[in-house]
């Protein structure tokens, strides 16, 4: 998964206690100590992640290969890939897939721009910094279901202040395009703080001296942003975009509350939920989950390829 970029020349200067050279059968004492420390440090994380998820993930994959409908438990049988064929040839899957993709792309794009703006304000503001930072994070802190519910209330004619601003007789949650726009709005409002916080921490790593030096050399604000700040924040940007995209693609709560998936607004996660918990078709539901997983994995792979050496786990590049 991770990109093991070949070590650049600068590496040699900063590489820790060597012994990594290829073709050398014996590891030096330092390298072995390093390896031991690494295993010790990673052991708890590996242990807990494997212990909690190995069986559930394996079980879900096994279920996806079964014909298993809780309404007809006696009919359970190995079904090979037929569940996948059923899902992939179904119009429901593809329309949900397109809706999900649309919501993901638009909301992550808006969130990145807005999140960067928020992070810059949080980082550089000279008045009320603590207050601003805290307030920005409140939307992310509110229970998602309740936030979604309050949006639904606000956009429903008669009960909401936002619906009252619209022309009489409009019910924005009942049309496909307007409902998707409102879902995106709710999603962007809720999760931009996540992006902003990660980008803020990235901004904290850009040395002020460097920016001042650039300013003295005549770089304008835009140049400083695109030539210095953004390149230095690359690792933080990767993490923020990656995890937001993974989450956005699995959007569920907001749609569930705002529209219930009606009028062509359902996401792939809603489809999975409906099959698992409404129709009790465990085989089909699990196949949908695995397909969502594969789709998300492809997205993650593209991101990591695009960001190359900035991805975690690629060799440290000896940055100074």
């Amino acid at each position, binding site marked *: 998964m991770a990109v093991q970029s070949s070590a650049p020349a600068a590496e040699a200067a900063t590489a820790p206690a060597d012994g990594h050279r290829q073709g050398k059968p014996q590891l030096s004492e330092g390298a072995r100590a390093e390896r031991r420390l690494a295993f010790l440090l*990673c052991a708890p994380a590996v242990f807990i992640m494997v212990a*909690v998820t190995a069986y559930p*993930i394996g079980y879900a994959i096994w279920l996806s290969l079964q014909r298993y409908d809780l309404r007809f438990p006696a009919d359970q049988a190995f079904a090979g890939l037929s569940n996948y064929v059923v899902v992939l040839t179904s119009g429901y899957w593809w329309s949900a897939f397109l809706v999900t993709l649309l919501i993901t792309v638009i909301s992550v794009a808006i969130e990145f721009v807005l999140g960067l703006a928020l992070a810059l304000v949080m980082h550089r503001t000279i008045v009320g910094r603590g207050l601003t930072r805290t307030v920005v994070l409140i939307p992310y*802190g509110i229970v998602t279901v309740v936030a979604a519910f309050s949006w639904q*209330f*606000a956009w429903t004619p008669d009960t909401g202040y936002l619906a009252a601003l619209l022309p009489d007789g409009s019910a924005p949650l009942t049309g496909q395009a307007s409902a998707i726009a409102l879902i995106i709005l709710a999603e962007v409002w809720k999760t931009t703080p996540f992006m902003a916080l990660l980008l803020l921490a990235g901004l904290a790593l850009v*040395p002020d001296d460097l920016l001042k030096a650039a300013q003295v050399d005549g770089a304008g604000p835009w140049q400083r942003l695109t030539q210095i700040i953004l390149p230095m924040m690359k*690792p933080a940007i990767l993490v923020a975009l990656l995890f937001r995209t993974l989450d956005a693609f699995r959007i569920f709560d907001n749609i569930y509350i705002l529209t219930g998936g009606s009028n062509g607004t359902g996401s792939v996660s809603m489809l999975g*939920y409906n099959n698992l918990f409404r129709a009790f078709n465990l085989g089909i539901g699990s196949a949908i989950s695995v397909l969502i997983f594969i789709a998300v994995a492809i997205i993650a792979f593209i991101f990591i390829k695009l960001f190359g050496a*900035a991805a975690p786990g690629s060799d440290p590049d000896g940055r100074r």
Partner: protein
Amino acid sequence: MAAATTGAAKSKWAVANTLVLIYALVPVLWIVSLSFKPASSIGDGNFIPREWTLENYTQVFGVSLFTSALVNSIGIAIIATVLAVVIGTMAAYAIARLRFPGKGLLVGVSLLIAMFPPISLVSPLFDIERAIGLFDTWPGLILPYITFSLPLAIYTLSAFFREIPWELEKAAKMDGATPLQAFRSVIVPLAAPGVFTTAILVFIFCWNDFLFAISLTSTERSQTATVAIANFTGASEFAEPTGSIAAAAVLLTIPIIFFVLFFQRRIVAGLTSGAVKG
């Protein structure tokens, strides 16, 4: 640079801050407004309530489960956050800093865990927890919370660990510090922005989780506040619990505000107050 702190710059930032506050707070104030509306006028669509009432709040605390659920939520979220950040910090340090076989595998697999749709994992998790007696206990929730926040923790932390000036660690080692000492006393303080960012995100994840909480708990022993909200009913059989849900959401947001208020100042403190100056 004296010009940067003039009144003009201050008012410019004041405008920017105000825009940010409006963006973040208007939808929140709507929830606050709903929480103060009496049942009779909750559906009237006014942004500012015509009549104010505290009945929604008294009702929330009238639900016997809510107080214990609040205690469970706080305890579980804090323990899970501390453990996830500690375990994640250790692994991220190794990933960013050390050479060892299987690094790519660890990074890849932890991301795979973050990608699997949790809805299809709760049923098998329920089966396991029932079998080994973790169902409806604090550890029964803490363990999945740590697991599903570790990928984000590891990625965030290792991204920040890579950016740390390594010369300092080497200098510490040259002064006689062991690798572990160098890790503890040099890298951890420098990584503070990443560490506290991670802590905030993990805490909010645990605090707001609904799916695991509803599937893996059943009584006041471990039921969390999000689940308690979902079980609200109206004042009478026929009343919608909208007001009390809004009131409970407002109450649930208060601990988050304190948590963030407490940790946000550390997000820059790591690099500006440390030894890297100059």
